[in-house]
């Protein structure tokens, strides 16, 4: 038997290296990046000391791109090429976007995700978001002085699968390794809960620029368990601006405005809303290109009347979430307010009234999501002893598929804890049927037409049988990012199933490749070189992970032969990674991964045993 090796204290075999990881809040109106420094979560600023990056991207004719303040100041002058609130369009088709007539953009009416025509060509909301992410990535690498290991990117809890996938695609375009997609209210709860040592049932009320989320969580000893979530992915502070804007149009009896005037008036509306947070009335003045002069005063009481329906629209999801969690208002320990829009006093008042307690606002509602995401990123990157933080989140909307007659069959119900997998068997409708079309949908309604279509694919190669004889098992798996994968297999024949995917509102793999190509050629980079570099980074990451696992458990779970085999594959990968054949590196990565399968299984079994033993020890106490 080999002797166990013990290293000197503080001299681990693999010296611990602090990995650079950040949390990114990709917001509808503003975006932020935060990181954990010396154990404290902090928001990173730009060179001018600003934390909030306006989520505005302007495309110029010469191919240059302006992001943030620079773009925002040009919004009124160049409205068609200056895209704000792109988050509202992520994973969405043209028909899904409300108020499209008020938006100055040139939308392309094509199947799938909506596209915008700009002077720099047609842009997808994913590309617009990627520009914002690139700026935040550069800000973080500047501030931290090195390449990022990865990022946690937040999404509204109520985002559906298409919107989540679009967000992940945007990160990929921006060259960011996504450690996890994290729900915004959960991120806020982490920042809040860890700061306040909170225990019990908490509600996070998150009204952002364009989305509304409510999550109900049970906090206990570093475990954040989401019990239920609800919301409206098309309701936010922007809608309050729009109410003011419409009120001005109505009161001033203005004719339809030019795009520049629309943008100007929307800006004025937003400023008035913000002014009303601390003042009883707001004056709205501007001179339009048409020569019309606007000069009006909006009182708080008028503003409250105008927006009462919007406030009510946020309370309905709160009630639903409580019902789903099988809890009453009295069970709630505290209500955390998140999102800039919750600064509006009448929102706070409505929440206070509903819960019968003062909402908690001691963390900056604009920053709390990014701060929480940074804490999670730090844990996922392995910088912190993980034993004290675990997030258990849920699926926001039921996932199912279309059955006969356009009806939905739910496979995974809403509020199921992720990761989750469910399978259901289906059969053929006609004699000799050899293919089956599978339509994946998300939503709570009975009719497929009322749910969101996520994807369609076909299972082919079913051996011809009598109607009803085939047994096709469709399995839905939702991973820890909340992303769905679907597989289908005919059970009786065991025949190889062929699956083709047509994402309804996502991007095809080749579209992403083209976008990457375009962005590289613009940055003067060589696509091939970049791909090689990324593969080398993957190889490095795998080698580090395997080395760490071997260091910890190699002696315990591997015999000499098995250990030698893994060592050999590691050597091979090191050699391959030093070369410049990306395909060969990928192949060697796959081989090493496969070679560590058994080792991984043994380690996992040991972890499970440890969990149960730990449990029993506690019982003895």
């Amino acid at each position, binding site marked *: 038997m080999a002797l166990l090796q013990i290293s000197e204290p503080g001299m681990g075999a693999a010296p611990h290296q602090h*990995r650079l990881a950040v949390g990114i809040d990709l917001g509808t109106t503003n975006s932020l990046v935060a990181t954990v420094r010396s154990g404290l979560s902090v928001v990173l600023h730009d060179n001018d000391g600003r934390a909030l990056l306006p989520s505005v991207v302007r495309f110029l004719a010469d191919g240059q791109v302006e992001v943030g303040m620079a773009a925002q100041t040009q919004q009124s002058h160049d409205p068609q090429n200056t895209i704000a609130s792109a988050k509202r369009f992520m994973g969405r088709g043209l028909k899904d976007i409300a108020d499209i007539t008020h938006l100055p953009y040139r939308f392309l009416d094509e199947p799938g995700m909506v596209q915008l025509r700009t002077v720099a060509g047609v842009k997808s909301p994913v590309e617009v978001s990627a520009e914002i992410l690139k700026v935040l990535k550069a800000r973080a690498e500047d501030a931290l002085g090195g390449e990022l290991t*990865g990022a946690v990117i937040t999404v509204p809890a109520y985002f559906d699968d298409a919107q989540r*996938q679009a967000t992940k695609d945007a990160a990929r375009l921006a060259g960011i390794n996504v*450690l*996890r997609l994290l729900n915004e209210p959960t991120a806020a709860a982490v920042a809040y809960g860890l700061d306040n040592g909170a225990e019990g049932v908490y509600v996070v009320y998150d009204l952002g620029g364009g989305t509304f989320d409510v999550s109900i969580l049970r906090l*206990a000893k570093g475990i954040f368990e989401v019990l239920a979530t609800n919301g409206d992915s098309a309701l936010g502070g922007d809608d309050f601006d729009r109410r003011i804007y419409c009120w001005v149009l109505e009161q001033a009896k203005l004719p339809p405005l030019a795009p520049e005037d629309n943008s100007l008036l929307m800006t004025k509306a937003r400023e008035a809303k913000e002014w009303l947070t601390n003042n009883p009335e707001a004056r709205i003045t501007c001179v339009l290109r048409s020569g019309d002069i606007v000069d009006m005063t909006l009182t708080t009481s008028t503003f409250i009347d105008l927006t009462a329906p919007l406030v009510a629209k946020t309370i*309905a999801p709160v*009630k639903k979430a409580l*019902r*789903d969690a099988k809890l009453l208002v009295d069970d709630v320990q505290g209500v955390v307010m998140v999102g800039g829009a919750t600064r509006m006093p009448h929102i706070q008042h409505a929440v206070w009234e509903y819960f019968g307690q003062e909402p908690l606002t001691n963390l900056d509602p604009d920053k709390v999501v990014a701060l929480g995401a940074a804490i*999670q990123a730090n*844990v*996922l*990157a*392995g910088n912190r002893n*993980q034993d004290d933080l*675990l*997030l*258990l989140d849920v699926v926001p909307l039921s996932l199912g598929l279309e059955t006969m007659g356009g009806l939905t069959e739910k496979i995974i119900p809403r509020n199921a*804890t992720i*990761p*989750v*997998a469910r*399978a259901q068997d289906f059969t053929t409708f006609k004699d000799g049927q050899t293919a089956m079309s599978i339509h*994946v949908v998300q939503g709570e309604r009975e009719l497929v037409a009322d749910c969101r279509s996520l*994807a369609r*694919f076909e299972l082919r190669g079913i051996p011809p049988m009598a109607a009803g004889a085939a047994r096709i*098992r469709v399995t839905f*798996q939702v*991973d*820890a990012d909340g*992303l769905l*994968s*679907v*597989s289908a297999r005919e059970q009786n024949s065991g025949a190889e199933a062929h*699956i083709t*995917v047509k*994402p309804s509102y996502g991007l095809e793999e080749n579209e992403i490749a083209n976008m990457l190509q375009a962005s590289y050629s613009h940055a003067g980079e060589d696509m091939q070189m970049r791909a090689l570099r990324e593969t080398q980074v993957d190889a490095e*990451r*795998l080698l580090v*992970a395997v080395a760490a*696992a071997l260091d910890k458990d190699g002696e315990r779970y591997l015999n000499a032969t098995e250990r030698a085999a893994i060592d050999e594959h590691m050597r091979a990968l090191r050699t391959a990674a030093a070369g410049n054949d990306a395909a060969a590196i990928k192949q060697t990565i796959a081989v090493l*991964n496969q070679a*560590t399968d058994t*080792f*991984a*299984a043994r*380690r*996992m*079994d040991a*972890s*499970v045993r*440890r*969990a*149960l033993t*730990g*449990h*029993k020890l*506690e*019982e003895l106490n």
Partner: protein
Amino acid sequence: MLIAESFPLIANMHKTHFELFGLPPLFAIDIVRLDQAYRHLQAEVHPDRFAAATDSERHQSLQWATHANEAYRTLKNPLTRARYLLQLHGVDTQEESNTAMPADFLMRQMEWREAIEDAVVVADVEALEALDRGLRSEARSLREELSLALDEQNDYAGASEIVRKLRFLDKVQAEIDQAIDALES
């Protein structure tokens, strides 16, 4: 959306859900212990613990965390717990095929449905909530009956009938929730 090839779910997880969480196979379980054991298990196997690990480990972690969630959900909910226990005893609860119910239960079913319809017509959310509370207490006494039938009398046929009743109550409660949702939005 990603479409993955089908993979065999959970290769070597032969333990029953009760064994997995170190609990005796009873209907009357200690929920606090279940919660604790579940959290201990997730603390070890959750994908967040393996964000920087190898593909193999991440895959294993996903499978185990998925399994832990499924086992927890099954035991946490009284209806699924009873169904699972009966399954372990080789008893089919015949929820789809056996629709025979005692006459008095059928009567009450009709009363509940009528009460829902009446409340919806006049948009009376409070009446629906009161009805919901009534059903909850009904479910509570059914759970007590289940505990007796399963844990003490080994009366699996009787337990199956109670499961069918509980399932029915679940459906009615879901209808109430939907009706309230519709009235409130």
